[in-house]
């Protein structure tokens, strides 16, 4: 079946890792294919030895990558390495050789047989078929003396398109040219999803039309709504991290702390998802971690990580950031982030169900262990981490969380503001916590009653929605009255113009993906606090997101050179 894609169409898949990027697509290097008509080796016994050697080479290579990768990727690669070392795989390939199959094709057939069995199990096991297929492709590459398939590095930002991605593919993505992932197959627990979230790369999976995209086609990928706009009309104009991906050099962007033109400090922090991520961020001019998404450290874990192991991971992050602040968010499981070791059961309406702090009702041990581990890490490193809970609805929940954290000896305690009730009653929150951090993505979905995973509602999820800005303003005012910090760690903070509006609304720090920081810093440095406030007021007086964006852009002597995307 061939599907064609109109030049200016929109594809829809499942958004599994939030963020918006615009860049041309590049396809994963095609695997070396095999055919029953390939030349057959003279002696099946000799060919079997060649296959055994190739399997061992691939198993060793994957095990070596596991050791170097650390975190989530290490577990995935370790398990995949064990598949390559499986004697049953060699046995099946040997049987195909005995039946007269060409060497490489014998491996393909053996892998195909096991993949079918995995798929027949459905769910988690079915998604391991991609891992096994990757093993097969690597073995075939070794047998034919070709390089192992890998992620292309064209030297400019790209969205990587593939049928599905294996752990070995995704493990090589950090720090490369790939700014987004788009796959035809895969679900929310596929490795593409897990590792994309760990790396903070926007990703859309299960997108049937992705295979028809010609290499080089520019797309605008939204990892929240799952939409992929082909040939977007105004690439780079909506405040995402990547410009148009055509490889032009960025405007010169000075490193250093975040501050407005009139010297008002606005610490620019980083959202990180894993140990290696955090360590990479620590080596930059990031002013700290505004959001350590602890669930991402554990997404692919079959077994709940021990207190000691967690403590080691947190201690590494705290030590790496030294004097800089680190805000650790407790497990935000449920809804779109299922955890194997925290079974929550199916929900009709997961975004409104048991997620975030709410999961601790039925599983109090998980939160307790996490707080204990963080306290251990704090004691071991001599640092004072901040800890915050996700999905807090009431001041009572916030108080209970603060009490639990204090019991473990943690002194800086905060909560996320993602639920409108928390924003509306923010003053009460500040009576029991030391700081809040606004998650604009969830706050937007809840205030607009628009599921983040619902593509057609993307316009309601625009972070420029004035109703969302109103809620941010309420939290900002409550924070100022209490004299306590108000962070923003949602994607809104990564939009340079919107970042100035958020500061005008009362945000005292902004936490973004690492790639967005330079542009946000430049935008803040260009305006003083009065302009930020004026922009905030202008945006809030608008009737819709496009109007809000235009109104904010029109304020300020520095003339933000943005075209208005309305119409």
């Amino acid at each position, binding site marked *: 079946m061939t599907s064609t894609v109109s030049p200016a169409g929109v594809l829809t898949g499942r958004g599994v890792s939030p963020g918006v990027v615009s860049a041309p697509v590049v396809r994963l290097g095609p695997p070396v294919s095999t055919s029953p008509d390939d030349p057959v080796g003279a002696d099946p016994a000799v060919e079997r030895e060649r296959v055994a050697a190739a399997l061992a080479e691939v198993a060793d290579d994957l095990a070596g990558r596991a050791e170097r990768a650390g975190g989530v990727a290490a577990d995935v690669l370790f*398990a995949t390495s*064990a598949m390559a*070392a*499986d004697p*049953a795989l060699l046995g099946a390939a040997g049987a195909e050789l005995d039946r007269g199959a060409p060497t490489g094709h014998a491996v393909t057939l053996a892998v195909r047989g096991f993949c079918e069995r*995995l798929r027949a199990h459905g769910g988690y*096991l079915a998604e391991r078929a991609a891992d096994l297929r990757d093993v097969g492709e690597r073995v075939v590459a070794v047998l034919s003396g070709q390089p192992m398939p890998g992620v292309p590095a064209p030297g400019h930002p790209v969205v990587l398109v593939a049928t599905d991605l294996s752990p070995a593919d995704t493990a090589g993505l950090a720090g490369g040219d790939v700014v987004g992932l788009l796959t035809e197959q895969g679900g929310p627990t596929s490795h593409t999803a897990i590792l994309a979230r760990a790396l903070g790369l926007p990703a859309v999976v299960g997108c049937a039309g992705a295979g028809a995209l010609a290499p080089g086609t520019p797309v605008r990928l939204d990892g929240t709504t799952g939409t992929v706009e082909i040939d977007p009309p105004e690439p780079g104009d909506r405040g995402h991290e990547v410009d148009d991906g055509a490889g032009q050099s960025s405007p010169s962007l000075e490193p250093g702390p975040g501050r407005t033109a009139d010297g008002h400090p606005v610490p620019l922090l980083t959202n990180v998802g894993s140990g290696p991520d955090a360590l990479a961020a620590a080596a930059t001019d990031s002013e700290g971690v505004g959001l350590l998404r602890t669930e991402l450290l554990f997404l692919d874990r*079959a*077994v709940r990580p021990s207190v000691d192991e967690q403590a080691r991971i947190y201690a590494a992050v705290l030590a790496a950031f030294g004097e800089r602040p680190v805000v650790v968010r407790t497990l935000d499981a449920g809804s779109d982030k299922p955890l194997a070791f925290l079974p929550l059961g199916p929900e009709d309406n997961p975004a409104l169900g048991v997620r975030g702090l709410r999961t601790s009702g039925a599983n109090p041990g998980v939160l307790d262990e996490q707080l204990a581990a963080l306290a251990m890490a704090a004691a071991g490193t001599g640092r004072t981490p901040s800890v915050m809970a996700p999905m807090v609805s009431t001041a009572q929940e916030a108080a209970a969380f603060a009490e639990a954290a204090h019991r473990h000896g943690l002194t800086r305690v905060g909560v996320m503001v993602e639920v409108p009730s928390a924003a509306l009653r923010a003053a009460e929150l500040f009576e029991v916590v030391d700081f809040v951090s606004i998650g604009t993505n969830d706050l937007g979905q809840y205030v607009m009653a628009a599921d983040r995973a619902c593509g057609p509602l993307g316009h309601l999820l625009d972070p420029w929605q004035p109703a969302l800005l109103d809620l941010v303003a309420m939290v900002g005012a409550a924070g100022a009255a209490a004299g306590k910090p108000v962070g923003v760690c949602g994607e809104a903070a990564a939009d340079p113009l919107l970042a100035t509006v958020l500061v005008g609304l009362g945000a005292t720090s902004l936490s973004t993906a690492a790639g967005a920081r330079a542009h946000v810093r430049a935008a803040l440095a260009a305006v003083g606090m009065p302009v930020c406030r004026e922009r905030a007021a202008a945006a809030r007086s608008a009737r819709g997101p496009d109007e809000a964006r235009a109104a904010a852009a029109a304020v300020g002597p520095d003339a933000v050179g943005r075209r208005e995307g309305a119409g």
Partner: protein
Amino acid sequence: MPSRTVVVASEVGLHARPAATFTRAAAASGIPVRLQVAGGEPVDAASMLAVMTLGVGHGQEVVLSAEGERSEEVLDSLAALLGKP
């Protein structure tokens, strides 16, 4: 044939890393070890794919069996591995 009956302690059973650790240990033992769930066929305990597809869950009982030299010792250590949470 010497055997051990073990309750799998890993919280989601024998998947991913626990399965990889177990199959690698079984392979490293140097003798053929079989793993069986109640009512199922025994499979090669050194086979990651076979062990994964058994779909053994947390708290499920499995039977390990092996023959030959050192089988008692090997079974003890593998049973201990499965019994660890």
